[in-house]
């Protein structure tokens, strides 16, 4: 076996971890904290800015680990799969080993960050899934009910980059998968490691604005579920206090 290479030629040591992120008008929200957090445990960051009209690109460029920043003059928001493909191609140009698909309002719990090198320096699996928790109304509680239970299913966000493999995204205008769906064919690991999603942690007004945006973009529920959209306005959602943990339980 060649040095550093394992099963099927997979690299088992010294893998580079690259975060990939698409952003648009995130300057006043969680972007700065998210990039600061990522800078602590990834090697490089690749960003596509989709036509921001605020200081998002400048903020992104100020982080040393951002090695590639692509700026779209015109937004591809209504053709989300094209935006995902653009981000993927930009990342490919940086010769990555592993890619972590992150949104600008997502934070990995400490034990997930600590496990990251162990997760990528191996040759048993090519994808890693985490549990995504939707924080609600605060950064202390997450929501859990019939509509909001994403954390009960594994979500693939970390993948090995395999040069020459066939990568494809479903042609969805909205809610496109953040990684090529062809990764589903490759061996994967489901973990109980957690991601904190702060996208719904803001005020009721912000959530109302998001709801209005969804209904404008997808009034017939073509890309998402109308019941799910309506649940955004639930006045009494079931909220559970978040418990930090020192190390991985399982």
């Amino acid at each position, binding site marked *: 076996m060649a040095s550093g290479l394992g*099963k*099927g*030629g997979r690299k088992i040591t010294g893998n580079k971890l690259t975060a990939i992120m698409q952003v648009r008008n995130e300057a006043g929200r969680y972007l700065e904290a998210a990039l600061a957090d990522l800078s602590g445990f990834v090697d490089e960051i690749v960003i596509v800015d989709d036509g921001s009209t605020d200081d998002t690109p400048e903020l992104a460029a100020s982080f040393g680990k951002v090695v590639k920043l692509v700026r779209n003059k015109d937004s591809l928001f209504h053709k989300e799969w094209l935006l995902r493909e653009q981000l993927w191609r930009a990342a490919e140009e940086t010769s990555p080993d592993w890619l972590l698909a992150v949104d600008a309002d997502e934070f990995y719990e400490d034990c997930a960050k600590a496990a990251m090198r162990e997760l990528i320096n191996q040759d048993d699996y090519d994808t890693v899934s985490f549990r995504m928790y939707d924080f609600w109304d605060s950064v202390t509680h997450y929501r859990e009910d019939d509509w909001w239970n994403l954390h009960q299913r594994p979500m693939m966000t970390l993948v090995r980059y395999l040069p020459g493999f066939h990568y494809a995204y479903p042609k969805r205008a909205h809610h496109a998968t953040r990684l090529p769906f*062809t990764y589903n*064919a490759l061996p994967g690991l489901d973990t109980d490691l957690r991601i904190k999603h702060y996208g719904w942690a803001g005020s009721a007004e912000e959530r109302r604005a998001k709801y209005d945006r969804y209904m404008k973009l997808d009034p017939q529920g073509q890309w998402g579920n109308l019941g799910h959209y309506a649940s955004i306005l639930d006045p009494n959602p079931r909220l559970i206090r978040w418990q930090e943990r020192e190390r991985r339980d399982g």
Partner: protein
Amino acid sequence: MDIVLFFIRSYKNQKSGTDGDRAMAAQPIVVFPPGGWRGIPSGVRDWLEELAAKRKLLAFANDAPNGIESLGLEQLNTVEWGSVAAIVMHPAWVHIVVPLKPHCLIAMLPGPESNEEELWSKCRAWLCAYATLVVAGTEAFYLEQCFRRGSVFLMDGMDETSDLFARQAVEWHSDGFESDMLIRLQQRHRANWRNELLRKQELELAAGSKPSGFADGLFFHSVYRYLTGEPEYARQHLLASFEQMLHEGRRDTLQNVYRFLSAIELEQGHVHDAVRTYGYTAQGETEWRNAEQLSGWLAAGKRELAKAQLYRLNDDYRKAAALLEPLADDPEARALLAATYITMGRLDSALLLGNDGLRKSAGDRRQWQRLQGTALLLKGKRHEAIHCFLAAGEHRQEELNGMIDLAVMDGVARELTRGDKEAD
């Protein structure tokens, strides 16, 4: 259809003029049925009965209809085998028909059953390897044989024109005419037929319905394009099939579908890409070792060996053998070639390579003796074959399988002549 018939007839007339002495007129045909005459699938039976009006037809069946001469196994020696075409419809006939050395040996077999016993798989492989023409009853079996030998036709009743090519090939072949042109025509026709089917299914898909077999159709189409030497088309259809199967939530697509990309990449001359693709799809110790071996051979400059092994790992034994044959002086290549021949059912070819690659361990020695026994059996040297089977089982009872298999084959062959009872 009419155009196809016209083309076939005019081509045959042309061939009659050029093939000269090699072509013989209306050879008798002897049928070895799959369970009496009534055991033959009705469409094939009708065609054979029509054929009996044009040429002499005999059958080892106790229920042959008027116009077809009925034979019993005790009459095997009454036939002038050097001037007849034998159509064999069950693998269990192999040890009876092959030693007879008929002028033409046509294996006309249905595809393997899903839970088929290993003995019949082996007999099918041997029969197809020794046949001068193979007519496959299912598409999967047809493609498997295309990856093992030339002169293969498909007759699955799915497409009238395609079946016509196969029937015509049998007639031409029986009369001593080459049928290579018909193979290319059938493959191209089948590829176009598949293409039309896919277009219809794409329209159904666009209209919101879920056409059944769409993903598998894309895969089959990819294989046809591979066979017809159009690797870029093959690649496009393979990747479309892979995507579609993932959309449908199908499992094992990496090994069963995506891996074939490595064979296509070989066809495109991208050997390093092909080895890498195989590595991505490898699962389990054996396949990981294969991937490592392929990389090692490439690194050592043994490019042809790596290519041959990769074709083998994609079941394309025919291309693998073609690459290995000129390298047979190299021990690694010779061992690989022997294994390839054995899978193809070409026992004589494997034995001709010598035994140094296969006789390293006691287990391999027994395998060698069984192979020798089977090869002797197919030459009609029954007593010598039995001696080999007994020698293989000298120390272990389970190694007497060769003897047990022979008894089963004898018994089934007797049953196959009877129209009142189908063989198991």
